[in-house]
């Protein structure tokens, strides 16, 4: 589906702009993943949007690798272009002690709800987000449900009554 050669071209341009931006790249199953440091994510996204036509953030989702892993959390940014139809995945790794990443709501408005969902379910903090509240779970919910150490049925005793 995706043209890896063209995608690698975007990564090369990113590297020539600032070599620190691209930590690592992984090619697998026709998709390209670019690892980016949390502090650089806004700058990288801005360049990709303004200069390389990645004008849509198709998806933003987080993942938990498990409590014993460090870095524990990963945030995936699935970028898409409505002009050249390429897709690119940016990945930010976060440790459990400092699960903070700057928000990209200033670049794509759609990041608003995606970031709220990730905060809600994983407890990742998006710095400078305009309205970082829980979205799917009630505001008095205890814990973050998608973390691997959160039990499937929650902490409260299970009862049907």
């Amino acid at each position, binding site marked *: *589906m995706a043209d890896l050669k063209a995608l690698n071209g975007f990564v090369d341009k990113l590297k020539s702009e600032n070599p620190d931006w691209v930590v690592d790249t992984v090619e697998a*199953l026709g998709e390209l993943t670019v690892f980016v440091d949390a502090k650089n994510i806004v700058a990288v996204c801005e360049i990709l949007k303004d200069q390389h036509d990645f004008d849509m953030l198709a998806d933003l989702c987080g993942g938990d690798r498990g409590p014993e892993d460090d870095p524990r959390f990963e945030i995936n940014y699935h970028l898409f272009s409505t002009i050249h139809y390429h897709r690119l*995945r940016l990945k930010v790794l976060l440790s459990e002690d400092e699960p903070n990443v700057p928000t990209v709501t200033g670049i794509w*408005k759609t990041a608003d*709800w995606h970031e709220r969902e990730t905060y809600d379910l994983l407890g990742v903090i998006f710095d400078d987000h305009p309205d970082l509240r829980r979205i799917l779970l009630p505001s008095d919910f205890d814990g973050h449900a*998608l973390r691997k150490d959160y039990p499937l049925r929650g902490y409260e005793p299970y009862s049907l009554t």
Partner: protein
Amino acid sequence: MSVAVDNLTDPADILDDSLESQMTISMGPQHPSTHGVLRLELILDGELVVKTVPDIGYLHTGMEKLFEYKKYQQGIVITDRMDYLNPLGNNLAYVMAAEKLLEIEIPERAQVIRVLMCELQRIASHMVWLGTHALDIGAMSVFFFCFRQREKILNLIEAASGGRMTPSYFRIGGLMMDLPAGFERRCKQFLDGFPDAMDMFETLVSGNTLFQSRTKGIGIISKEDAISWGLTGPCLRGSGVELDLRKHNPYTGYETYDFNIPVEDGCDVWARFKVRMRELYESEKIVKQALERLEPGPTKADAPKVVLPDRDDMRKHMDSLIHHFLIVAEGFNVPEGEVYLPIEASKGELGVYMKSNGGPKPDRVHFRGPSFVNLSALPDMVEGELIADVVAVIGSLDIVLGEIDR
């Protein structure tokens, strides 16, 4: 006596204040026009909407958590319950993500049947949209005519899979089973009656001046905003962006079918309405082409460790029985990796992010539901509109809460 009267505020002042002050109204979660359990907090100035805050999560059932505790093939039935108007689309995205991780090739016949069923499902989904959208605006009878057409499609899906709303028809590596005898004839019967039904809808709804005046110029979202909000599907095409993943990121052989992408640049409810109406004709075209392409052949991939064997094989071959036992009891291991697989569902881009650790259960499954993203743009669309138009805009977004809340 006179002192007491002096202390009173002038009644005219009270009246003026109440007219000028803003009022907060909670719409839903049980409001019929919110298409499920969506709650909107509307801040109104008179009848004008100043601000809208959608409140979702009433239907949250932790499906993404549940995927992590189920084997890959068990996850398919969960996807049925997300966008319950387009379950085959959800099945397709999920199984295609797993197939991509497993690097399995699907036989030609299975691909054609997938396209055929998905387009039938798209028509059924759009029928519900048309019926409820018209109902929200006040046209009651359209709803019944739409559901009559939808019922015919649900009967077809039931004939193929055994389930009306929860088919789980697509499996990892192919289909649950081949189409039943006589399916093509029944499908053609449906197609024969469909143009007449469409003519009726065009007369009843599209040609209705009341409907037009309720939808034209309402809920405007510009092309740039639509892209920034991540709108996809008919909502994006109603804002003048030609983007259809069936053409631009093709899957299951959609690139070989002949169909057009309807685009309107009105950016309003009426434009989104027209896009979906024109899409119905395109889906009908694809269904016809797929029917012509149906050639006899296998419907399951040649991957015995992943695909359940036929019952007949199990009675005759020892290894089939062993494979069946292992797949059901232990599942199959999926190679380590991660994929993001987008398809064009009836409501927009349905993306599945799937990450495998190498075991029989996924490490993470995330559904990017088109309804979730499209709804997030609602506050932008209804700002400054009349409160009565909010239901028209919600109808034009075609949301399903099962997919938003997951």
